[in-house]
C-alpha cells in the first residue's frame, strides 16, 4: 500500500472551477497531481451515473466543483445540482461509500488559491481512507 497513489476524478464546471484550474496552472501554483479532470458544461449537467461510472472504473474519490450559487453561467444550474448532490452523497454513503470519497465545492474562475486548497484537502482525505473498496467493477464471480 506504500506506493499507492489515489485516483481522483474531478468533474469541473467549464465556467468556474475549470477556469480556476487553468488559472492555478498559469499562476504556477503547486498542488497534488492525483486528480483527473473531466470538464462539464455546468454542475447541472452532472448525472449521478457519472459518479457511479467513476467508481466503477476504479476512482478512489470523486470531486465535483462548480460556480458559487448565484454565479451560474446558466443562471440556476448549480442550484438544481445542489439538491441532486445532497441526495447523491447521502445515498452513496448509505450504501457503503465512505464520506471521504465524495466531495463538492464551489470554486470561481478567480479562486485559483481556493482551487489548490480544495485539491489538497480532497487528496488528503482520499489518501487517508485508502483505495476504493466497493462499487469498483471487477471480474464477476460467475461460473
Amino acid at each position, binding site marked *: 500500500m506504500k506506493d499507492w497513489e489515489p485516483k481522483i476524478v474531478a468533474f469541473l464546471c467549464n465556467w468556474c472551477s475549470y477556469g480556476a484550474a487553468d488559472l492555478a496552472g498559469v499562476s504556477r501554483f503547486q498542488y497534488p497531481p492525483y486528480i483527473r479532470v473531466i470538464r462539464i458544461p455546468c454542475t447541472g449537467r452532472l448525472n*449521478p*451515473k457519472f459518479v*457511479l*461510472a467513476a467508481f*466503477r472504473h476504479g476512482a478512489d474519490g470523486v470531486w465535483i466543483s462548480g460556480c458559487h*450559487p*448565484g454565479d451560474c453561467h446558466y443562471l*440556476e444550474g448549480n*442550484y*438544481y445540482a*445542489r*439538491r*441532486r*448532490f*445532497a*441526495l*447523491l*452523497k*447521502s*445515498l*452513496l*454513503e*448509505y*450504501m*457503503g*461509500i*465512505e*464520506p471521504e470519497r465524495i*466531495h*463538492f*465545492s*464551489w470554486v470561481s474562475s478567480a479562486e485559483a488559491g481556493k482551487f489548490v486548497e*480544495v485539491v489538497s*484537502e480532497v487528496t488528503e482525505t482520499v489518501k487517508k481512507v485508502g483505495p476504493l*473498496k*466497493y*462499487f*469498483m*467493477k*471487477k471480474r*464477476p*464471480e*460467475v461460473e
Partner: protein
Amino acid sequence: MKEYIPKIREIARKLLEEEKVDAVLGFRKGTIPMMNEPFMARSASDVDLLYWDSNCGINLANYLHKRKEKIAVVAKGCDTRNIVNHIVENQVKRDQLYIIGIPCRGMIDRRQILAMFEGREIEEVDEDAENVIIKGDGLSETIPRVEVLQENCSICIHHNPVIYDEMVDEPVEEPDHVDRYDDIKAIEEMDPEERYQYFRDIFSPCIRCYACRNSCPLCYCPTCFVDESRPQWVGKSIDITDVMTFHFLRAFHCAGRCTDCGSCERACPVGIPMRLLTKKLEKDIRELYGYEAGMSLDERPPLDTYRPDDPEFFIK
C-alpha cells in the same frame, strides 16, 4: 375492502353507459389467492369483472402514461399520489381522468403469508374488516389484518386519495404517530463497511428481471439506463457491483417522486426489500426540503426546483 366492489361497479357502469369515459381501469379477480390482475373494462359488459380487495397492491398509475383515451381509474391513496406525479410530469392530463377514490385500509403482504404457511397449500384467502382468513388443505386460520399488511401499508400516512372525482366510501382515519423511518435510521447508524455488507446481502439474490423497475409508475423512460450501450453504465450479469449499481440508480431516479406504494417489493420474485433505498431518499427529501411526493398538483418535484437557501453544509 370487498365491500367497495358494488360501488366501484356502479360508478363504472354509469360512466361507461353515459360514455363519460372510454374505459375503466381497475382489477379483476386473480386466478390464484392473493393476486388480482390489472384490468381495463371497456364496456358495460366488462363491469362485473371489476373487483377490489386487499390484494390490489400493483399501482395502477403505471398503466396511465401516454394514454390517449379518457379513463376512469380505481385508485387508492398511493395510486392517486402517483397520478399527481404523472400529471405534474405531463404523462397524462387531469381532464383525461376520472378518479374513483378508494379509502384504502392497506394491502396484504402476500409474501409474508406464503412464508407463514410455507409447505402448506393456500387455496383461498378471504378477508373481512378486521381479519384475513386463510383456507387450504386442512387449513383455516384467521389473522388480524394489521399483522399481515405490507410493510409500506403498515407505515402509510396517506390511505385516502389526495385527488379524486368520486369516492367509493367515507375516508378512513389516518394514523397519528407513525415513525416511517425506523429501519432507515438503524442502517444510518452502521459504519460504511457494515452498510455495504448489509446491502450486498440484500441485493445478492437479484436476478435482474427488472420487475421492480417495470412495476413502478415512475419508470417510463423510453430507454432505461441499463440498456444504454455507449457508454454502458452498468453490466448485465449478476455481478454484485452491477446489481448494486442498478438498484442505486433505479432508486435515485425515483428520488422526490416515490410515494412508497410498494409495487416494487410486491413485484420482486425473490423478495428484495428495495424500498430501503427509496425510503432513505424520501426521508432525506423530507428533512432537507420538506417535501412529500405526489401531494399537490401545484408543486414542482423537489429535484425540479430549488431554493436559493437550500442546505449546502456538505459543499466546500
